[in-house]
């Protein structure tokens, strides 16, 4: 029972850590973007869980009914955060397309190799 009741606070850490692992371990830039999105959804999960209340209902007031409503504030914050995460993802993907046109690859380590080779050429020239 106690594991069930605190399950969400473990689950959001797990989701965040899957995203973080992808961000560090994978070289592909699109995969890194997906990992970033996963990290963000972990945080959303934490916020929404904070708003839940036993026997609660959605914060849509019903006249004449005496209900326990969920906390609307986390919902409001996360609404903004979801839209902002979409914007950041759009910019990141546009940058990745630009990188692909410039370097011909979207793997971070290959890009670093190309950069180093160019810097060496410049140094020798």
């Amino acid at each position, binding site marked *: *029972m106690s594991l*069930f*009741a*605190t*399950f*969400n606070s*473990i*689950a959001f*850490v797990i*989701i965040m*850590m*899957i*995203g*973080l*692992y992808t961000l*560090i*371990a*994978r070289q592909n830039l*699109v*995969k890194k973007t997906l990992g970033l*999105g*996963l990290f963000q959804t972990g945080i959303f*999960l934490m916020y*929404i869980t*904070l*708003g*839940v*209340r*036993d026997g*609660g209902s959605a*914060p*849509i*007031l019903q*006249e004449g009914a005496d209900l*326990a*409503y969920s*906390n*609307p*504030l*986390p*919902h*409001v914050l*996360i*609404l*903004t955060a*979801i*839209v902002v995460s*979409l*914007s950041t*993802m*759009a*910019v990141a*993907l*546009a*940058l*990745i*397309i630009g990188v*692909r046109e410039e370097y011909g690859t*979207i793997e971070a380590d290959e890009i670093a190799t190309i950069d180093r080779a160019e810097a060496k050429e*410049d140094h020798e020239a």
Partner: protein
Amino acid sequence: MSDPVLLINVILLVIAVVAAIAAMWTRDLLGAVMLMGIYSLLLAVEWANLFAMDVSYTEAAVGAGAATILLLTALTRTGTREKAGPNFHPTALLTVIVTGALLIYGTADMPRFGDPQAPATVNVAPEYIAQNVGKVDAGEDGPENDFGDHVPNAVTAVLASYRGYDTMFETAVIFTAGVCVILILRPLSPSARRETAQSQEGA
């Protein structure tokens, strides 16, 4: 356990974690994007299960709809195969384990799921729920009754009354992002392309 909300919450989260791991594990980026679409659908059901109706709407439209389309559009121009490589990365694993352990240690003090005595529930939430609507006898122009009894959704009321600037600058963020995307993806003008070619030849 007897609470269906809690039971379905746990099952949904377990499936969501499996979907997330699968999406991150696969080397096929197209498959990863589709698995992320499934993950978004699961999260949207989870938000609905946790009473966050507006978030669920947004997640369905943005996470499962718009984000998938954006990623697919990007994939048509970057290729869909990820380079093969080792799945095991010791540094990343160490970082993740240490950070995760610290975070789980930090969440040990958090209130249990749905605690009615949780700080988030007792401090400001009653005020936010009480301030908006359903006050039929508050009068037409009372300060407590800004929405004229017509907004039963507390999320809308809080967004409009307390977080108006938030929403306004969110629009600014989207606008900036759109301008950035257009500027980055814009094809170079012929003169600019000539200049770039010349500078590359000279170097």
